[in-house]
C-alpha cells in the first residue's frame, strides 16, 4: 500500500511535468509553428534523454534482463506521441477550440486506458472495468468541464 501511494504520487508529478512542458512548448510555438516546435522539442528531448540515460547507466547497477527479447513494437511509442502534436494543432484551430479539444482528448485517453487495461493489451496486466471505474471517469470529466467553464 505504501508503495502504491509513492507510485501514485509519481504519477501525479508526471501530470505536473506535463503542464510545465505544454506551457513551455506553447511558448516555443509562438516563435515557430506547432510542427517546428514539436520537432525542436523532440530534438532537445533526445539529447536530454540521452544524457539522463548515460548518467543513469553509470549510477545504477545494471540489473539487466538481457535474456528477455525486446519486441520490435516496443520501439514505436514515439510515433503516436509525435502525432499528438499535429492532431492537437488541427482540433484546437477547429470549432472545438482549446477547451473542447482538451475534454475530448481526456475522454479519449481514459476510454483507451480502460479498454487496454480490460483486455490486457500491449503487455498490460488485465484489470477488468468495474462500476467504480465508470464513476471515477464521470467525476473526472465533470471536474475538468467545470474548471474549463470557470475560466
Amino acid at each position, binding site marked *: 500500500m505504501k508503495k502504491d501511494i509513492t507510485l501514485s504520487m509519481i504519477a501525479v508529478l508526471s501530470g505536473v511535468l506535463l503542464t510545465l512542458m505544454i506551457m513551455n512548448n506553447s511558448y516555443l510555438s509562438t516563435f515557430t509553428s506547432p510542427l517546428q516546435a514539436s520537432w525542436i*522539442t523532440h530534438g532537445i528531448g533526445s539529447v536530454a534523454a540521452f544524457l*539522463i540515460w548515460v548518467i543513469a547507466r553509470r549510477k545504477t547497477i545494471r540489473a539487466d534482463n538481457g535474456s528477455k527479447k525486446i519486441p520490435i513494437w516496443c520501439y514505436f511509442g514515439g510515433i503516436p506521441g509525435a502525432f499528438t502534436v499535429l492532431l492537437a494543432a488541427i482540433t484546437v484551430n477547429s470549432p472545438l477550440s482549446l477547451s473542447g479539444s482538451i475534454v475530448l482528448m481526456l475522454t*479519449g485517453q481514459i476510454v483507451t486506458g480502460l479498454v487496454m487495461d480490460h483486455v490486457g493489451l500491449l503487455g498490460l496486466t488485465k484489470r477488468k472495468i468495474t462500476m467504480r471505474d465508470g464513476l471515477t471517469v464521470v467525476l473526472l470529466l465533470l471536474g475538468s468541464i467545470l474548471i474549463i467553464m470557470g475560466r
Partner: protein
Amino acid sequence: MLLFFVMIALGNGLCIILSRTINGRLAQVSNAFYASLVNHVIGFIFLCIIILLSPTTFVIDLTNIPLIALLGGVIGAFFVVINSYVLPLLGATLTTILAISGQVISSVVTDIIQHGLPNNIYLQILGIILILGAIGLRYIKK
C-alpha cells in the same frame, strides 16, 4: 464536419495512451531511461520525415528563440522516464487518471499565478473537488 474533429480529438487521446503504454512496456523489458531515449529519437526521426514530405518550406530562426523556450524538451525527457516507470505498475487507467489530475490542478494554479483569479473561481474549486473525489474513489477498499 464537427464529428470529424471530434473523432480526431478522441483519436488524439488514443495516440497519447498508445504511446505511453508502449513506452511503459519498453521500460519493463528494458528500463525507463532507455524508453525515454527511444521515444524521443524515434519521434524525432518520424517528425523529420513528416517535415521532409510536407510542401511548406522549413525555416527556423534559432536566434529569435530564447533559451528558456527550449526547456520543454528537457522536461519531456523526464516525463517519459517517470511515466513509463509507473504505468506498467499501476495500469493504464489509474496512471492516466492521476496524471490528468496532476495536470489539471497544476494548470489551474499556474493560470492563477500568471493571469490572476479566473472569472469563476468557485466553479473551478468545485471542479478540483470532483477530481480529488475521483482519485479518492480509487483508494476506497471495495
